[in-house]
């Protein structure tokens, strides 16, 4: 594998589609969803929502 500093030399896959339908690709997708989906679905902290709403009120007044 050609991996220079930062590993940035394009070494693109054959397909333009992000989906990887190989057995490993399907397993990886399932695993990543298990690791990350609940983070996305957790309630947003009240403090953060208040921060945004306070700013909205401030900019609209």
């Amino acid at each position, binding site marked *: *594998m050609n*991996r220079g500093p930062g*590993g*940035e*030399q*394009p*070494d*693109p*896959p054959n397909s*333009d589609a*992000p989906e*990887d339908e190989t057995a*490993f*690709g399907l397993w*990886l*997708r399932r*695993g*990543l*969803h*298990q*690791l*990350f*989906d*609940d*983070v*996305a*679905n*957790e309630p*947003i*902290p009240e*403090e*953060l*929502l208040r*921060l*945004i*709403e306070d*700013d*909205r009120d401030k*900019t609209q007044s």
Partner: protein
Amino acid sequence: MTTFHSQVIAILPKLRVQALSLTRNRAAAEDLVQDAVCNALAAQDSFIPGTNFSAWMHRILRNRFISDLRKRRDTTDIDDVPAASFATNPTHEDNLALKDLSMALSRLPADQREALVMVVVQGMSYEALAEATGCAVGTAKSRVFRARRQLEAWMTGDLPANDKLRVKVSALRAAMDARQRSGQRGEDLLG
């Protein structure tokens, strides 16, 4: 009409996923999202309505992560963050495989991990990923491709003999197998 602030609130779940992919730590991810939102609110006048808000917001979070990392570089090594931080529900039937995946993900470079998660979990196109991370489409593709290939190599055992991850995973598997053979549960090993 969708206001700027409504767009910020709507994108928060995706920012959390991006933040966790970068920091590998839930508490740090929450802090990063909050800091990025503060930066976005402070810079809202620079956002041009009608342009890509999602990309603008993801770039702010990413830049904040990089900025924080530079400030901490003298005292903290990001790679010292515990790999177990990704781990979620320990009672899941696939928990051992998830633990393996969590550890392997932690070893990926942050930009590859972020790219993989944004494409696979968030369903982003390579073009959207490139815009959200401020790189060329070819670079975005390359990051995802390298991440997938590296994870597959690690997860299927194609590792150097002295690889620390494999040693840890092998030890964990052996301990779990021993517990199962003796009729004991092994979930506590994953905590």
